[in-house]
Each structure stands twice: as structure tokens, then as C-alpha cells.
């Protein structure tokens, strides 16, 4: 197969920007104050979520940018500019911009336990946040508490463990960003693997005077998926052979690589798919009882909700999918372990889930985006009017027309999911018929999403 990639770093300006140590710092210099303001407004601002900067900017503006723009088009770009691990990373480095000699880090440098070298903890952390999400999304104080907790855990982890251990193994958001970044048409990769083999110093991993070893604990020469690449471009800076580049590529290229597929990532795909479905039912459906139940944390009804929520994520949806896998295995007379086949097919859910999240997000982002103008002028809800927009009325954008965006998004996700399913069947040396139950699952899921959002 020909390499259908475009090396963007051949463009001198792009190369110069990415090689600059100021790039990441200057972007974080923008996101960090916004993050701090979100926390401050959460703690000290109005409790009315739709008038509070923290709620509006984190759960509407940032969320929309992440799901609708950054993830599908730029992969893990957000991780490169995320303010949460920045203070810890700066403390580790005892520097803001320029590197220490040899890329030395000031941390206890503990290694993450090998048995936890996976994303199960991220899956658990995401589920925990998701379970309380109705409260977190709507209550500024709780939202600020959660963001502060993320920042403190990130800081503590940086002081104790090596590099970005928090981002790699603990961040509840990082898990799904990594999973869905496989769809993005952009990648950081080495140019020539043979050249890497001759380079004994491995400065991209251990660091050098030019920069730090990969903060994401990745040896760039082995990188064949975006999942764990934080796109910080540190390896571009530390490679003395100019052997690392930023490429534009076809959408979803990583989904054609089935090396390294794992059950923890498969479960992340299920959790994301199920949460998109449940949020569409609970948050944007007309059933007030469900919203009230999800909000009434600790009530007897909430416990039923919590049990069902967890069961749907961990048992029911994966169980239905497993039935489809077993059916497909039987139809295609596929040899081998059902568990591995289940894992292989689960990557079908990456485009399907991302599309479901995008469609779900469109339904509330466009409707609520106009709150942005109010909170920009009055972030705390204290009656300020900094830019003269504090009294702008709520005005839903493109109300009634969202389906024209949502349906095509869902259809693209469905088409891509079916393509991955059929390819997976071929990789098993089975007839394409083996993928039909999986395709039926994808169709049924998309139908349910259409019913919910339409």
C-alpha cells in the first residue's frame, strides 16, 4: 500500500513553529487562566449554571471544541495544550520553557505499576464522573470541585511519578481522547524506522539538552497509533537526526492497524458508546423523571439509576455486542478465541461512538451557545458587564435545524463502523458475512440515536 501521507513538517513555517519550545507554553498560557477562572467562578460565582462561566465554558464551549473539532480533526491536540498537568510538569522540569540540561526531571520518578499499564483506571474514573455527570454538568460548585480534584491529582502524580503518568494512566478524559484520536487525519511519527535503530542515544525517549524524553512514556519509533501520543512534539525537538515529523493522513488510519488492540481499550469504546446513548435519553429526552433521578444523588431512586447505568456500560451493551460477535464467529466459521475477536470488533465502535457523541453534543451546544456572551461579560454572575454583552438574551442557534447536522454525522459514523467491521472479518480470514451481525448492531444503535435526537 502506498504511503498516503503528507509530511506537514516539510513546510518550513510549520517545522519552525512545532520545533519552538514556546509553542506549547504559549498555548497553555491561554488555557490555564481560562481553567483557573472556570474553577474560581465555580466556587465563588452564581450557582445558576447557565450564568456561570465555569459551567458554560467547560461543558459547552470546551466540550464542543473537543468533540466536534479537535478530536475528529486534530486527535490529541487538546492534551498538548491541556492546563491540568501543566503546573506539575513545570514543577517536574523546574522550568517553564527552556529545558534543563539533559532533559532532567525533578521528581521522585516512581515507575507506574506494570499491572496498571493499561487504561482500566481511566475507564473507572470516567465512569465515576459520568455517573455523577448530571450534577457535575449543572452545578458550578461541584464542577469546580471536580476540576480542582483533577488538578491536584495531576500535581501530586507529577511529583511522585515519572513524566505525565497522570495523563497516561489516570485522566478520565484522556482515555477517550486517546481512543477517538485514532480517527484524526493527523499523526506524529518517525520518518525512517531504520534510522531510529542506528541511533543509540534514543534522545526522544530519555531526553537531551534540546528537550525532555517523551512525556507520554512512548518510544516514538514504536508508535503506530495516536492513542498514547500526546502530540506535545517534544520528540521533534529532541531528535538530532530530524527523523520525526507531523503528517496529514486519511481519516481513521489507525483503525486499520490491529496490532496492540486490548480489552481495556475495547471497554473504553463500550463505555463511551453507552454513555452517549444514556445521556441522549436522560439529558435531552422529554422524561423529567430520569433527569430528576440522575440529579438526586444518594436517593433510593438514584441507586437504581446508578446500578442500571453501570450495568448498561459494563454488562448489557457489551453483552449484546458479544452475542453479535459469537453469531458472526459462527457464520464466518472463525477459529480462535472469542475474547480476542470481541476485542478486535470493539474498535468498530470508535467511529460509531465518536459520531454518537458529536450528534448528542450538537443537540445542546447550539441551543446553549448563546450563554457564552453573557458569561464573558459577567463570568461570576455578579452583575458585571465587561464587554456589554451581559444582558444579551438566550437565543438558540439553528433550533429545529440541528438534525441536518446530526443525521449526516451519524451516517458517516455508521458507514465507517461498517467498513471497520468488514475489514476486521477479512483480517480473520472469514467471509464478510461474519461481520453482518456487527453491522446490524451498528445499524440498530444508529436507529436508536436517530429516534432519541430527532
Amino acid at each position, binding site marked *: *500500500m502506498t504511503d498516503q501521507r503528507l509530511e506537514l513538517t516539510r513546510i518550513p513555517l510549520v517545522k519552525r513553529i512545532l520545533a519552538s519550545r514556546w509553542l506549547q507554553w504559549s498555548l497553555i498560557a491561554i488555557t490555564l487562566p481560562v481553567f483557573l477562572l472556570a474553577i474560581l467562578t465555580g466556587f465563588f460565582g452564581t*450557582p*445558576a*449554571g*447557565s*450564568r456561570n462561566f465555569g459551567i458554560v465554558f467547560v461543558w459547552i464551549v470546551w466540550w464542543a471544541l473537543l468533540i466536534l473539532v479537535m478530536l475528529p480533526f486534530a486527535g490529541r491536540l487538546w492534551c498538548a495544550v491541556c492546563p491540568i498537568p501543566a503546573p506539575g510538569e513545570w514543577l517536574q522540569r523546574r522550568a517553564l520553557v527552556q529545558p534543563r540540561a539533559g532533559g532532567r526531571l525533578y521528581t521522585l520518578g516512581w515507575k507506574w505499576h506494570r499491572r496498571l499499564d493499561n487504561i482500566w483506571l481511566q475507564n473507572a474514573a470516567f465512569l465515576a464522573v459520568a455517573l455523577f455527570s*448530571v*450534577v457535575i454538568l*449543572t*452545578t458550578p460548585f461541584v464542577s469546580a470541585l471536580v476540576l480542582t480534584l483533577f488538578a491536584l491529582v495531576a500535581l501530586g502524580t507529577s511529583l511522585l511519578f515519572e513524566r505525565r503518568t497522570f495523563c497516561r494512566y489516570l485522566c478520565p478524559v484522556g482515555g477517550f481522547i486517546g481512543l477517538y484520536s485514532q480517527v484524526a487525519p493527523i499523526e506524529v511519527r518517525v520518518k525512517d524506522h531504520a534510522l531510529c535503530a542506528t541511533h543509540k542515544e534514543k534522545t526522544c525517549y530519555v531526553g537531551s539538552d534540546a528537550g525532555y524524553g517523551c512525556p507520554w512514556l512512548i518510544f516514538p519509533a514504536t508508535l503506530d497509533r495516536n492513542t498514547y501520543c500526546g502530540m506535545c512534539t517534544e520528540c521533534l525537538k529532541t531528535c538530532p537526526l530530524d527523523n520525526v515529523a507531523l503528517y496529514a493522513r486519511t481519516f481513521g488510519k489507525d483503525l486499520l492497524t490491529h496490532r496492540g488492540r486490548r480489552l481495556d481499550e475495547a471497554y473504553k469504546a463500550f463505555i463511551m458508546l453507552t454513555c452517549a446513548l444514556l445521556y441522549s435519553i436522560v*439529558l*435531552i*429526552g*422529554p*422524561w*423529567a*423523571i430520569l*433527569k*430528576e433521578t440522575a*440529579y438526586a444523588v444518594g436517593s433510593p431512586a438514584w441507586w437504581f439509576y446508578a446500578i442500571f447505568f453501570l450495568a448498561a456500560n459494563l454488562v448489557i451493551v457489551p453483552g449484546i455486542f458479544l452475542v453479535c460477535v459469537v453469531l458472526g464467529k459462527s457464520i464466518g466459521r472463525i477459529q480462535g478465541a472469542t475474547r480476542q475477536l470481541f476485542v478486535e470488533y470493539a474498535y468498530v465502535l470508535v467511529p460509531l461512538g465518536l459520531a454518537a457523541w458529536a450528534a448528542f453534543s450538537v*443537540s*445542546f451546544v447550539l*441551543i*446553549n451557545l448563546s450563554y457564552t456572551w453573557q458569561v464573558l461579560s459577567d463570568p461570576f454572575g455578579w452583575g458585571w458587564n465587561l464587554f456589554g454583552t451581559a444582558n444579551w438574551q*438566550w437565543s*438558540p442557534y439553528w*433550533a*429545529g*435545524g*440541528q*438534525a441536518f447536522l446530526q*443525521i449526516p454525522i*451519524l*451516517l458517516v459514523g*455508521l*458507514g465507517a463502523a*461498517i*467498513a471497520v467491521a*468488514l*475489514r476486521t472479518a477479512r483480517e480473520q480470514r472469514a467471509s*464478510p458475512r461474519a461481520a*453482518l451481525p456487527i*453491522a446490524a448492531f*451498528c*445499524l440498530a444503535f*444508529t*436507529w436508536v440515536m*436517530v*429516534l432519541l435526537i*430527532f
Partner: protein
Amino acid sequence: MMDTRPRDRNLRFGILALTALLALAALVAPLPVAVPSLSPQARTIDVNARQFAYEPGTLTVQRGDTITVHLESLDAAHGLSIDGYNVNLQAEPGKSADITFTADKEGTFKFRCSISCGALHPFMIGELNVEPDSPLARALLVTLVVAVGAVLYFWK
């Protein structure tokens, strides 16, 4: 890897074209959906609003009906704004509001609170179903067409 032999390329192009054609047909062709049995009527619907719910949460009418929504607010100021219709009314406790409009567009339309009323305000949502709901039927049909088209396109 995709097969690039001319015959396969032509087949794939044919599948793509047929899928697009059928999807287009599903969007515009007359559908055998149930036609309203009654002629358009004038209906008054009482809706109670409270934090953070409408009762009833789902309103079902027939296309062409003239609808009067009578909104009562039970606890705080609430609004009712219907997506896709130029309808927005606001009520306070003891001060109800009415609005009359013609349900001239088919489909399911969310209605939502237009006055910030508390924590769950952004998700205080109800649904207006204007039957027959042919947009939903068309969307489901297009989804089926795309799924079948994708299976055929990526089969080899």
C-alpha cells in the same frame, strides 16, 4: 486494502451512486405513513411547568392543527420555546401565558425552558410531535439505505 481493478472500481462506483440515489429517494419520495384521520382541529393544551419538568412532557398533535398552549408555572418563572417554530412564551406563578400557532411542520420538535430557572434548566425539555412524523421515518429509512450501501461497498 481496497481493490483498484477497473471492474471493482466500477462496481464500487455503481454501489455508491445507487446508495446516493436511494438515499435521495428516501428523502423526497412520498411515504406510506398514516395520514391524519381527522381534519385540522383547534386544540388547547394545558402545560404545567415546574423545576425542571413539563407536564405533560410530550404533546402530540396533527399537522395543520391550530394549537393554543396554555402555560402555567408552578414554582418559578419558566419559558416554553419550541425548536423550529417561532414560539416562545413565559409564565410566572399566578401569571399564566397563552400562545396560538398552527402546527404546519411535521416531525418531532423539542421545546425547552427559555428562562434560566436553576441547575437543570438547560435540560428542561419536552417534545412536540406533529404527526405524521415523516421526517423521522425518512431519517430511519436513509440510515438503512446507508448501512446496506456501506456493507455492499466495503464487502470485498
